[in-house]
């Protein structure tokens, strides 16, 4: 597991929210609002979070289990159309190690009662992420939630 490699892939998530696009968009645009939901692990510690939401602005998150690996997110906003579209690029690091570079498009569309949101991530996933145990652990965190969701569906 020492070779250099790059995997390219894309995924898309579609969601509906019971709120007008302006409210959903604001949850992405206002730092104090985004900080409320952006972390994906309840038990992780946020060491730093800043968001400068404008074209050319940056977003920075340092988060991880207490005393463990620091997960670093650094984003750069390329395109913002209020209440309609956000395009940003970001890189992810585990401590100093760069693990991925991605382009994200978030689309907001009004429907009868709320908002349809599409999240599309196109990524280059780098080598250096071959730690199977770590990966399984990371996957588990999200799968608990997903499982509950699948049961509901």
């Amino acid at each position: 597991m020492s070779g250099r490699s790059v995997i390219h892939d894309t995924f898309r998530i579609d969601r509906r929210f019971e709120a007008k696009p302006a409210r959903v968009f604001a949850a992405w645009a206002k730092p104090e609002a985004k900080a409320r939901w952006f972390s994906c692990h309840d038990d992780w510690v946020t060491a730093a979070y800043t968001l400068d939401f404008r074209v050319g602005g940056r977003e920075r998150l340092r988060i991880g289990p207490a005393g463990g690996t620091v997960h670093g997110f650094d984003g750069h906003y390329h395109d913002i159309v209020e209440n309609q579209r956000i395009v940003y690029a970001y890189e992810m690091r585990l401590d100093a190690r760069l693990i991925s570079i991605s382009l994200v498009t978030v689309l907001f569309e009004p429907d009868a009662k709320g908002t349809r949101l599409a999240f599309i991530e196109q990524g280059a996933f780098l080598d250096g992420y071959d730690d199977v145990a770590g990966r399984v652990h990371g996957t588990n965190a999200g799968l608990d939630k997903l499982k509950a969701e699948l049961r509901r569906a």
Partner: protein
Amino acid sequence: MLNQSAPLDLMFQALGDPTRRVMVERLSRGPASVSELARPLAMSLSAVVQHLQVLEASGLVRSEKQGRVRTCRIEPAALKTAEQWIIERRANWERRLDRLADYLAEEGETPDKRRKR
């Protein structure tokens, strides 16, 4: 499309169970016999074998019998697939968007608070 998503569904199902995750985590540290896998689990050996069958069907785990002992090992190829990457990243985003929905619901219920800000 079906051909791509079917193995993914199986992996999701396989990892969607806490017992099977314990088994995968144990195997990610090295091969183990069925009875070694069963030791920390509070269940019958036949229940463990059933979980093992689900893991094998998903492609995450392989096992082979030598004499009376069945040895299980993680299938690194399965865990190295691009899909595995995407599963994790996607699962994190599914989780975040759940939190966003919760946040919007909470915020919607307290309009007074919002006005004050």
